[in-house]
């Protein structure tokens, strides 16, 4: 039998009793998404993996106990859990070992989606082919890690203009790299 369950159906399945297969599927599905959240907020691969495990544990706990009353709101629930967990990580509150023992490391083994591999030489040509201001905005944003306000000040333009230039540059780069906009 080939049954495709959406996220909400998975939540119901897990809530209705111990279903390791449903739990494993939920982990497999949510782990890469949580990891992206972690990369954005923690800027560290290992910390993102820790976050992923902890969020999955907390989510499974809640689902097993039937605490998520609206299964369609799984994404919002996970987002809230991510935020709380990031705060916990920042506070240094670690209960990982005990929970790993309780839930099993195999179930929570992090899924690591690979980042796309870019053609370095092509990217260089694409970045070099941008207009001067576009290239400056992209480098100042991604390398210098300057805020929109700082970039705007350097270029003598508004923050809104910086955003427009950055958006145009991103689209140009993706087009040049052969990725659909």
């Amino acid at each position, binding site marked *: *039998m080939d*049954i*495709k*369950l*959406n*996220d909400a159906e*998975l939540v119901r399945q897990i809530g209705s009793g111990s279903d390791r*297969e*449903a739990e494993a*599927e939920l982990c497999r*599905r*949510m782990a*890469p*998404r*949580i990891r*992206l*959240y972690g990369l*954005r907020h923690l800027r560290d691969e290992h910390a993102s993996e820790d976050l992923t495990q902890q969020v999955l544990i907390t989510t499974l706990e809640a689902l097993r106990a039937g605490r998520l009353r609206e299964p369609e709101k*799984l*994404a*919002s629930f*996970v*987002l809230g859990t*991510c935020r709380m967990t990031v705060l916990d990580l920042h506070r240094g509150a670690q209960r990982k070992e005990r929970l790993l023992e309780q839930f099993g490391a195999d179930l929570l083994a992090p899924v690591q*989606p690979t*980042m*796309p*591999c*870019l053609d*370095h030489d092509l*990217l*260089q040509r694409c*970045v*070099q082919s941008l207009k*001067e*201001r576009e*290239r*400056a905005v*992209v*480098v*100042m*944003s*991604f*390398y*210098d*890690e*300057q*805020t*929109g306000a700082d970039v705007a*000040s*350097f270029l*003598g333009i508004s923050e809104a203009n910086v*955003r427009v230039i*950055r*958006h145009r540059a*991103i*689209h140009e780069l*993706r087009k040049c*790299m052969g*990725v659909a906009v």
Partner: protein
Amino acid sequence: MRIGDDGDPVTCSNPIDAAVLADYWLAALAEAEEEAVEVHLLDCDRCGERLREVIALAEGVRNLAREGCLRMVVSDTFLQRAAEEGLRVREYAPPAGGGVRCTVTAEDDILIGRLAANLSGAKRVDLCICDEHGVEQLRLPDIPVHSGASSVAYQESIKFMKAAPTLRMIARLVTFDEAGGERLLGEYTFSHTRTLPGPGATGM
């Protein structure tokens, strides 16, 4: 029973634009917009895949910047950042109308020509790179400069210069009058002596 994929990577009814995902990665979104993006990303693998592409692009740009191989005007913040990362920045600052003898070593990571000029009132500035006879070889049009700045930091590709023979290069900063005519802001001569061994070491 086999449980199939929910997050079909091919379809998304409301895809998030890659540029907005770049803003998200840069923490440049307003709070409400960021929350909407995050809820969507926790529900959509297609947009997650696009975010990974954006992150790879951002990392690629960072690597190119670190390698010092982009020909471009850079900010002082860029140079500070490079120094903080332990990169070795070699900078030459010839006066306007003058020249400087220069070289590049194997240990250098970033090569900068600091071009002093009065940029006040200049609405558009082009940087022209010319050969030793003054014939234009490359033009960077409408370079990013602040009208209050007193110089332009031009990064020459370190990879190119490490491979280059002994040569003379002339850089010109030009602006435009209301009729569209070019006006020279400054001319700078770089007399590069090759000190690295290898192909091209015998000169032009």
